């Protein structure tokens, strides 16, 4: 206890610096994957993507990120088992942040498709099991999280498949795809707005101190959906179609309308990513702050302070501004064969899955979910060619990332323990 009081400033300071480092890493790399489909399908210029990411990653983190932050903070390690040694959790969380951050930096250099989520969860489980004791880890919760890593890409794939088939049925495979697109796309935009608003209202806002009854949530989410759909309709009305564009490729005009839809889906994706992945950086910060500021009272029920959520959002924007914009451009240009209709189906499927996971407090990998969604669209015979070798690499990265994060965090944990203790 005295250790915590004596070193409170330096411990919180370290947590902030490490958390910022991790958030920077997420902004620099992870965001690029979330925004890549939008840039690749030509719906957004990469400058627009950076601006959207900056705004809505922050919004997602602050408005809907609380649940996952809570999981990272106190869902994986059973804090009640610590008893009189709360400082162990502080060291462990600092070690986890540093371990995950360094592992990500290394993996990025090597071009491995590792997930920020897997790194931090592996790190926390690692220090918990070795540093505190096997019984300190809430294995049931960890099992649920691990399961969600398998189910989330599958779910996104199923949604992506269904969404794309619905577009095929309602719009693409009709007499006049252009007219049908004008008619139906606003409904899809409504869906984007509604889903995002509903999950946020239901699960996210209580962490910023707002709690409404369910039916009121439903009304607000509907209103938000309608407003978003109206904005979209106006944008579609302002589009200019040329008969010439259709000569070369029959569906060029129709895809323009999907381009509008894609802007909204990209926003949803940035929001969803912010709500899930920012927690990887700030969950541990919140844990450290919670213990240190209350001088060892771990069991405090207090919500994550808003300044910490803002810290995560700010770190992401910083990562985007310094490095991420380049990565978005690279990823975006790498997938130029994605048309807006497919890009929309894949991105919305991923965004929905991620935001639902955020609402449930499950930290999942946005990138892997998006891979699942894209393959789902591919299964609907929608994409020219997919390289399924990526799936194998993703499995490999799981096998490597979890122990790597764990081992690094155990090392740092004992270092901090020795240093402060």
């Amino acid at each position, binding site marked *: 206890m005295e250790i915590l009081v004596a070193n409170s400033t330096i411990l919180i300071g370290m947590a902030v610096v490490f958390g910022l480092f991790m958030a920077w890493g997420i902004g620099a790399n992870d965001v690029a994957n979330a925004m890549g*489909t939008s840039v690749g399908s030509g719906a957004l210029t990469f400058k627009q993507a950076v601006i959207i990411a900056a705004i809505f990653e922050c919004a997602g983190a602050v408005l809907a990120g609380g649940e996952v932050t809570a999981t990272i903070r106190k869902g994986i390690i059973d804090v009640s088992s610590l008893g009189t040694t709360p400082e162990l959790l502080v060291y462990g969380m600092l070690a986890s942040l540093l371990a995950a951050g360094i592992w990500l930096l290394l993996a990025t250099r090597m071009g491995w498709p590792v997930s920020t989520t897997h790194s931090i969860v592996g790190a926390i489980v690692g220090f918990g099991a070795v540093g505190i004791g096997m019984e300190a880890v809430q294995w049931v919760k960890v099992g649920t999280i691990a399961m969600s890593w398998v189910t989330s890409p599958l779910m996104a794939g199923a949604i992506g498949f269904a969404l794309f088939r619905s577009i*095929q049925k309602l719009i693409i495979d009709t007499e006049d795809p252009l007219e049908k697109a004008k008619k139906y796309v606003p409904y899809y935009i409504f869906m984007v707005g509604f889903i995002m608003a509903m999950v946020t209202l239901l699960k996210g806002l209580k962490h910023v101190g707002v709690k409404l009854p369910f039916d009121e949530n439903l009304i607000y989410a509907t209103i938000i959906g309608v407003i978003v759909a109206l904005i979209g309709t106006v944008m579609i009305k302002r589009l200019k179609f040329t008969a010439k564009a259709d000569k070369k490729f029959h569906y060029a005009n129709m895809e323009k309308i999907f381009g509008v839809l894609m802007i909204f889906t990209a926003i949803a994706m940035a929001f969803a990513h912010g709500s899930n992945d920012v927690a990887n950086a700030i969950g541990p910060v919140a844990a450290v702050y919670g213990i240190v500021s209350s001088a060892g009272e771990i069991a405090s029920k207090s919500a994550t302070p808003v300044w910490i959520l803002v810290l995560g959002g700010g770190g992401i924007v910083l990562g985007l501004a310094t490095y991420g914009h380049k990565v978005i451009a690279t990823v975006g240009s790498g997938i130029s*064969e994605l048309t807006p*209709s497919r890009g929309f189906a894949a991105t919305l499927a991923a965004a929905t899955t991620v935001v639902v996971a955020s609402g449930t407090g499950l930290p999942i990998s946005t990138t892997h979910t998006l891979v699942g969604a*894209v393959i789902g669209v591919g299964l609907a*015979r929608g*994409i020219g*060619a997919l390289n399924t070798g*990526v799936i194998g690499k993703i499995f490999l990265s799981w096998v490597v990332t979890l122990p790597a994060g764990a081992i690094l965090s155990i090392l740092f944990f004992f270092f901090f323990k020795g240093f402060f203790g």
Partner: protein
Amino acid sequence: MVRSSPISNLFAGSPVKPLQKHMGKIHDCVKLLNPFFKAVIAKDHDKVADVYQEIYNLEVEADNLKHELRIHLPNSLFMPMPRERILDIVTVQDQLANKVKHLAGVAHCRKMEIPDEVAELLTALVEHTIAASHQAKKIINELDELVEVGFRGREVSSVEEMINELDKIEVEADKLESQINNAMFAIESGMNPVDVIFIYRVIHEVGEVADIAQRVGSRLELLLAR
């Protein structure tokens, strides 16, 4: 530092555009049959040599495109159409240019002279053959639309119609070929036998070009069958 991402790695280059590019090159080559036989009929041997050289060059260019396409179609690709079918279509397209190069080569090096009695019919056959190749190219160019609709519904029926059209052109070409053969039979006794053999052979090969063009269409039709 340019970095690879699992998302961008996931997207492999679609073979559709390269396949269409290859077919475009092939058709450019087939189209040259028109100036080639005009020159042959006009007995303009210099022109014949020039056009033959052009045909030869285009065939080589198409071959390069073919190799590039094959190399970029690894086994691990997941596509809305079976990889074997794509490779199959490339092979058939390739045969078009091979055949054109071969028959032009024979006509060129033998300094072939076409009897006036069959000249008009042969010109008509060449035009039909080029039309068949053109139709095949149009069908291949529908492939990106087919991918866009996921090989379903209206677009499928419109492509099927185009394939029917191609079949008709080929039937016409067949009829013309037998007409030429009849015309040749009437005059062959007064000609050098060796020349006659080779004229028959070239006529047959022009007809075969139309056959192969039809085969391009039917290979694509296999993609539509589910």
